[in-house]
């Protein structure tokens, strides 16, 4: 089955255009996804900066933003409707245009064929169509910033009726384009998902049974399944929302007999699995990296796989925990509270397995390992605080407060940024054939780790103090005024967190040209992507490898070194040979 794709015979014959732009090579497509994701990460980060400035120093000019024309901003001052737009687009961009392109688009595409010993994705042209659909979607989203009325401003969750009628927000085409951009984005990742599943099921190298798959592939596979099963209802919802706006229907408008809560059910039926669509690949990167730099097998491979599947299944049964105070029947709360809190069981298994992997290892601390440990520790805080949100009575108070903001940044930032950076530092040599600079990487890690916590940990306190999400000016409330020193502290932390990414940008670009040339296996790792040159040739492998063992055979007594690549044949030992 692994031979279903023949090696491309005309690699060098492809022109510049087919090699770098309209390429069907999964590695080039992965880099395109990465570029799209990193571009939007900068935009999303700048939006966060605008938000944080306004919250710390309400209605003062945001430094560096004086150029934004009226009526969006007034001499750099953030009007409330602009603030709502910034909040909305920050969330939309980070979830749909940073997390998914980087974690699934870039690393799913790059790693699935390389880690399973295939020459490319099952459907390379469909793969190209996926990334270009995402590019079109990105363009639509970008245009939405510049239409009259500005971009969408009804929150990334777009609750109708606020999102369903232009008069409620003053946003006309911005919201329509938001819906269209998301629909295109979903189409892109549906096509990508088809490739992920087909490739993983059909194109594994000989000997690569399901339980010899690297965990990253299990995570990508599960994420693709979750996405494809959950996104349908939301696409239907998006079409209905667009019809409400453009065609005068009333799916979500009560004056025409519609039901606003219907959207929330459709959105969160997708929205909760979507969290794991993002989480799993981020954790997958850490699960690859921890054994390599502990020189130990991953602890509990099978429990991790079963937990991943269990968490995926449970994620379809928890969506209403986003709706405890929404006015749904109170009797629904406890069943959803119980399923939600039960999700801590599979994730506890994964976290404990990661910790146990460190036990009696021989741990080294290069940059990818630091970010993998960052993913783990930050996720622990995110996971634990999720219990507060999942408990229906506790949620009465903390729902829609900064407690929730802190919680989901601890989970999602853990996956997107700590997991994403871990993946970038770890696989950069394979992607670009050069090593990244280690000292710059360490500076980047410590700035990110310290300032991330300085920004988001105090938000739990803000949430406990009752500060609501999505308000533009906390000083409008007497009970929030004593919290303002925290808001200022957080904003300073956020600016430093943003500046802390400069070493990464420099490192990423500088290493492309000047980085030390990477060997094919610089980390002495076992999985198949390290058996081919860095960067791999167009069809990845000279000869399709044959797999003899699982991916995490580090410090095995059967191997002379402390690693044992998946494709190395078992050699007769001298004792038995004689």
């Amino acid at each position, binding site marked *: 089955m692994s031979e279903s794709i023949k090696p491309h015979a005309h690699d060098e014959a492809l022109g510049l255009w087919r090699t770098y732009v309209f390429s069907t090579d999964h590695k080039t497509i992965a880099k395109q996804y990465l570029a799209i994701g990193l571009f939007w990460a900068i935009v999303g980060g700048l939006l966060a900066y605008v938000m944080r400035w306004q919250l710390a120093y309400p209605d003062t000019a945001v430094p560096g933003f004086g150029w934004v024309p009226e009526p969006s901003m007034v001499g750099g001052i953030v009007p409330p409707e602009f603030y709502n737009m910034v909040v909305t687009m920050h969330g939309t961009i980070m979830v749909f245009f940073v997390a998914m392109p980087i974690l699934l688009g870039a690393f799913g595409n790059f790693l699935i064929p390389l880690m399973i010993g295939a020459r490319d994705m099952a459907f390379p042209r469909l793969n190209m169509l996926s990334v270009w659909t995402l590019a079109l979607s990105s363009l639509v989203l970008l245009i939405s910033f510049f239409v009259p009325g500005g971009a969408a401003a009804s929150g990334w969750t777009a609750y109708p009726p606020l999102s369903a009628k232009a008069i409620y927000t003053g946003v006309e085409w911005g919201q329509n384009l938001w819906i269209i951009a998301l629909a295109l984005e979903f189409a892109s990742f549906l096509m990508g998902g088809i490739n992920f599943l087909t490739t993983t099921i059909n194109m594994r190298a000989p000997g690569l049974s399901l339980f010899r798959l690297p965990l990253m592939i299990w995570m990508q596979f599960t994420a693709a399944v979750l996405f494809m099963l959950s996104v349908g209802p939301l696409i239907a919802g998006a079409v209905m929302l667009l019809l409400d706006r453009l065609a005068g229907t009333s799916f979500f408008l*009560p004056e025409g007999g519609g039901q606003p809560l219907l959207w929330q059910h459709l959105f969160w039926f997708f929205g909760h699995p979507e969290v794991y669509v993002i989480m799993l690949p981020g954790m997958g990167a850490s699960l690859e990296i921890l054994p390599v730099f502990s020189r130990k097998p991953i602890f509990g491979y099978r429990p991790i796989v079963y937990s991943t599947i269990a968490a995926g299944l449970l994620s379809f049964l928890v969506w209403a925990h986003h709706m405890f105070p929404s006015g749904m029947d109170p009797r629904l709360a406890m069943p959803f509270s119980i399923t939600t809190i039960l999700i801590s069981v599979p994730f506890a298994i994964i976290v404990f397995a990661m910790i146990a992997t460190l036990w009696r290892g021989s741990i080294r601390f290069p940059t990818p390992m630091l970010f993998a440990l960052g993913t783990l520790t930050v996720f622990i805080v995110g996971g634990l605080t999720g219990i507060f949100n999942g408990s229906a009575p506790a949620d009465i108070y903390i729902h829609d407060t900064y407690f929730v903001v802190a919680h989901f940044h601890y989970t999602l930032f853990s996956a997107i940024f700590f997991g994403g950076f871990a993946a970038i530092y770890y696989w950069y040599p394979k992607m670009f054939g050069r090593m990244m600079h280690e000292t710059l990487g360490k500076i980047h890690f410590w700035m990110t780790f310290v300032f991330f916590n300085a920004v988001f940990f105090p938000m739990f306190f803000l949430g406990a103090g009752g500060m609501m999400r999505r308000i*533009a000016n906390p000083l409008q409330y007497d009970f929030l005024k*004593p919290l303002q020193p925290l808001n200022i502290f957080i904003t300073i932390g956020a600016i430093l967190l943003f500046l802390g990414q400069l070493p990464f940008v420099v490192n990423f670009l500088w290493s492309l040209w000047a980085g030390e040339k990477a060997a094919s296996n610089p980390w002495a790792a076992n999985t198949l992507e390290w058996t081919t040159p860095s960067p791999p040739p167009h069809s990845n492998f000279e000869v399709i490898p044959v797999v003899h063992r699982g991916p995490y055979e580090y410090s095995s007594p059967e191997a002379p070194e402390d690693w044992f690549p998946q494709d190395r044949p078992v050699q007769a030992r001298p004792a038995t040979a004689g």
Partner: protein
Amino acid sequence: MKRVVLSAGGSRILGPDPGRLLHVNPENAGDLRMLSWLPENVSTYGGDIDSILYLIYYITGAWFFLTLGTIVLFLFLYRRREGRPATYVHGNTLDQSAWILVPVVIVLGLDLWIDFRGAEVWEAVKGHMPPADVRVQLTAKQFNWEILYPGPDGQFGTADDLQLDNELHVPVGKVARVTLKSKDVIHSFFLPNLRLKQDVVPGREIEAWFEATKPGVYEIPCAELCGFGHSGMVGHLTVHSADDYEAWLKRTWPSPQSSSARLSAISGEPEDRRP
């Protein structure tokens, strides 16, 4: 549509006597105990909700120190040392995976504790609606709370109904029931000091209740993004002592003779019930 004007750097002051507002103690700044930041609880069921918050806080706090402590310890103990190879262990056999499965059973037990204790509190707060001593209808719109009082006859839809914008008055120690409606988008009726939050959904009437335990003035922010005036959409709850409440009633509905003077204050659309 009403446009709320936000003054630069300042707060929009609404309601009576803001000087009486209760809020988080300023000396909490720098306090590392997260839940000491909770605003003062003045609700009969607020203690139950806070007890759930504390239960989860202590359980998750213990796990936080346990797991992070273990990680730091392992990173220190098992850092790379020459001549000390890593141990080859997979954790796939039952006796090895017990190291992760036993803590998971503890996690499950604690989960169930939180769930069952949570179910009791939820039942107490949401599961039943105690008989109301006072009733008001609260209609949210961009960007105000319109609060309709039934007046001395206790009946809505009669001539002595009175609408006050952003001002909710209740007596202390009495069950207040609020019927929540919205004219436009979803809002969220939030009383931080009473541990009450309930979304207000257009097209529906949702009942909420509370019983305040301490007189004072408390803020009623909107907790759901509702448009450009969301930030600053805030009303005031005045909890009166028994005597004070009588005085407020007398002041507000002085006597039948002078009722014509108040007619302008009566809402034109009190029985705005949708089919």
